[in-house]
């Protein structure tokens, strides 16, 4: 027919015929009752498709020639459009179709089983008719109805469930919807429906869930509910600001509990315990972040900044961390494997990194290390060195050069002693054995030189050593640090019981006096030994007033030492141990006045550092305004401490007075470097 120019007639004939045919079909579909409606629709659709194929084949010639020329809709497409217009969009069918589809979904959501295959075919049909048909006739309404559904359901759940249960339910619904899409909806609907669930079930109730009493985020953290936390993380990740909310609530909780810990005087009584507690806390949160929060970097950062915040709330934190390390290196690490030692030291380093006042830590660490080295109390030389290396990596060689110097001195002293014994071995004979550590001033914490008269018995060998040393090292000065030494004394008591007493140098001086006298007054002791009063009293107290260690007897028996006391050799002394240690104790947390003093020294040390930074900066920049100087100085010094802006200003003024800097004459906001 086309060839004979009857294309138009053929085409319009097709349209008319198909339309009326479809109208009949429409009626039959409409007539279908209840559940059979979809079925009927589906069957007729399948038939129609088959028919369309055949028609297309038959009219192929027209399809290829007449239709393109006249810009008419191709046959197949025409068939679909007619189906759409006559059937799907027919008044009766359109709304009924929509209603039944949505009802099926609702039924399935309540737990009923529906014919998924049929649903699949229908939605596929809608897609075939055109995406806008699928969207307008079905999807749009599907999403709306789902939103209502979940809004209601979530409201119900939130009233009746605790946080963990709710999250489980939300997760279940979410997975359900995803599965639904894969079975009988278009894949592009997935993100849209999941959005609906996320909004209604999660986003709307985010805050309430997190803050829920007894089951919210904080409770989960405290009770270490990793699974629940993980679920919350995954769900909240799907909504904007979900993770931000979790992170913020967690951060403020950590900060608050940290702050409490740092300001609780009970907690602060035992520094070692305190630091252990900090480490445990860090471990706990690390575990939460790794197991439940997928090692999320933003959470790691929030944790770090929280710790940094509260650790520095207490100015004693640096001292306490050093005491913790001291305890571990003295005895805590005995019997621990090398790996575990490294692990612990790494954890300590992590706390160290949080400290703002690293220079204060350095001061204490030096003091404590000195005590450890000199008393030979370190558990593991390797562990000590390992920590120094870590500090060096973190802070640069300047930080550790003095510490390393201390180790060097110890080693050198060993060599010196070997040399001394080799050359003087024969001289010593039965006399007292001397072991000397020669310390380089400057590497070791500064000590005041105190007076103390050494007993005659050891003066000889001390002089021998001094001569030996100065003989091989000209130009040096040696001074005995009598406040830092120790001695082992062999003592015989009343009934012949022998003990070896390990004592401090001061204690040795006092005890040796009793070789020549059985009783001595305080004044006499003071006169002969010339030990400073405060130290002498402490020394006598440790010899006479401590149970189990009272090798001296005091008259009167009071607790405190006064000028009028008399001391006697306690020949009734007994101890079940052969070796008795009466020496000075391990490093302890400083008393308040000691702490003040250390702090003052730290402040004094900081002044030249600040000035050096200012001069360095001004030398480079020549001219700079005040705010920028403060910022640059802070940046330069932040690896050691946080400089106080007022102190910086004072240093600048001092430098102006000493004519290193001047105020710019033109712009009064600027400072100028004076070459």
């Amino acid at each position: 027919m086309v060839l004979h120019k009857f294309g138009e007639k053929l085409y319009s004939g097709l349209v008319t015929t198909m339309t009326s045919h479809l109208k009949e079909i429409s009626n039959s579909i409409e007539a279908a009752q209840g559940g059979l409606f979809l079925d009927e629709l589906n069957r007729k659709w399948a038939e129609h498709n088959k028919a369309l194929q055949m028609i297309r084949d038959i009219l192929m010639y027209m399809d290829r020639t007449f239709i393109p020329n006249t810009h008419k809709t191709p046959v197949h497409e025409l068939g679909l459009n007619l189906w759409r217009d006559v059937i799907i969009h027919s008044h009766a069918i359109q709304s009924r179709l929509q209603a039944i589809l949505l009802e099926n979904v609702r039924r399935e959501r309540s737990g009923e089983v529906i014919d998924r295959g049929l649903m699949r075919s229908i939605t596929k049909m809608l897609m075939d008719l055109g995406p806008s048909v699928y969207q307008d006739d079905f999807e749009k309404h599907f999403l709306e109805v789902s939103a209502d559904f979940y809004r209601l359901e979530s409201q119900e759940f939130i009233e009746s469930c605790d946080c963990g249960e709710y999250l489980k339910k939300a997760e279940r619904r979410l997975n359900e919807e995803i599965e639904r899409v894969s079975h009988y909806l278009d894949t592009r609907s997935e993100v849209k429906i999941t959005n609906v669930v996320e909004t209604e079930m999660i986003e709307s109730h985010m805050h309430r869930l997190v803050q829920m009493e007894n089951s919210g985020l904080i409770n989960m953290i405290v009770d270490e509910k990793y699974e629940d936390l993980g679920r919350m993380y995954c769900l909240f990740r799907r909504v904007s600001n979900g993770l931000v909310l979790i992170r913020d609530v967690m951060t403020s909780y950590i900060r608050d509990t940290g702050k409490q810990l740092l300001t609780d005087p009970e907690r602060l009584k035992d520094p070692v315990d305190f630091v252990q507690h900090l480490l445990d806390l860090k471990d706990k949160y690390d575990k939460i972040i790794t197991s439940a929060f997928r090692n999320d970097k933003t959470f790691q950062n929030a944790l770090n900044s929280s710790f940094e915040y509260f650790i520095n709330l207490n100015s004693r934190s640096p001292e306490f961390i050093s005491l913790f390390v001291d305890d571990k290196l003295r005895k805590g690490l005995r019997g621990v494997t090398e790996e575990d030692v490294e692990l612990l030291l790494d954890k300590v380093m992590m706390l160290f990194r949080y400290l703002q006042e690293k220079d204060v830590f350095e001061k204490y660490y030096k003091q404590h290390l000195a005590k450890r080295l000199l008393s030979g109390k370190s558990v593991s030389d390797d562990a000590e060195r390992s920590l120094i290396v870590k500090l060096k990596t973190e802070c640069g060689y300047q930080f550790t050069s003095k510490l390393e110097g201390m180790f060097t001195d110890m080693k050198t002293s060993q060599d010196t002693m070997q040399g001394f014994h080799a050359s003087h071995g024969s001289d010593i004979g039965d006399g007292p054995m001397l072991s000397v550590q020669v310390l380089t001033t400057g590497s070791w914490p500064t000590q005041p030189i105190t007076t103390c008269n050494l007993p005659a018995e050891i003066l000889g060998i001390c002089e021998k050593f001094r001569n030996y040393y100065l003989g091989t090292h000209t130009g040096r000065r040696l001074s005995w640090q009598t406040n830092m030494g120790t001695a082992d004394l062999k003592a015989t008591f009343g009934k012949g019981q022998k003990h070896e007493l390990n004592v401090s140098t001061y204690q040795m001086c006092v005890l040796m006096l009793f070789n020549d006298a059985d009783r001595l007054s305080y004044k006499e002791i003071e006169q002969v030994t010339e030990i400073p009063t405060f130290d002498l009293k402490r020394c006598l107290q440790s010899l006479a007033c401590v149970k189990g260690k009272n090798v001296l007897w005091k008259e009167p028996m009071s607790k405190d030492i006064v000028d009028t006391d008399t001391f006697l050799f306690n020949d009734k002394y007994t101890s079940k141990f052969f070796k008795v240690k009466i020496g000075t104790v391990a490093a302890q947390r400083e008393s308040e006045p000691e702490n003040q003093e250390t702090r003052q020294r730290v402040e004094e040390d900081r002044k030249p550092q600040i000035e050096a930074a200012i001069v360095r900066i001004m030398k480079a920049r020549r001219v700079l305004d005040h705010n920028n100087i403060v910022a640059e100085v802070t940046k330069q010094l932040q690896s050691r401490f946080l400089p106080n802006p007022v102190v910086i200003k004072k240093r600048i003024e001092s430098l102006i007075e000493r004519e290193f800097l001047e105020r710019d004459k033109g712009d009064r906001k600027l400072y100028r470097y004076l070459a």
Partner: protein
Amino acid sequence: MPPRASKRKSAPPNSSSVTSSDGRSEGIEALCSDLGVDYTDVRILMLAWKLKAEKQGYFTQDEWQTGLKALGVDSLSKLKKALSDLEKEVEKPSNYEDFYTYAFRYCLTEEKQKSVDIESICELLNLVLGVQFRPQIDSLIEYLKVQNDYKVINSDQWINFLRFCKEISFPDLENYDATQAWPLILDNYVEWMREKHS
């Protein structure tokens, strides 16, 4: 030259009357009484400035003669008149800062001295800035006397006192910014003021 009754006077005013080595300050005092001006009057300070006197309390022969020439003065009466002109000259903005700085240096009596004690500073402030900036100076002097941080004032701090009076609105101190390059003593002063008025 109008004749003078006083025994010390001769015309032109003789420098020796004020530079006798054993009576330096007496010389100045005598000069002051002749001029009818108090020894502590700011105009004497101004004169010292004009004469570029190096040391407080007296004028050298050179300073005296050069200075008088510069003033165009060859008699006491002319000197008296010159004094009042001098006030105007000093108040010129171009001279004022110079005079102000000079006033501080004038108080440095010892060799290598760089600072002046608080007491003297207060007097000097009153003398030099008191008239022009009465409220600020009264308040500042009160503060200087009660504070404990500084026992002396150096030239850097001195010069900033003038800046402060000129630039900062008083008594609200609104436009004072402690993060700027003001000396610490003024930061502390402002804080003290703000606390007083809160």
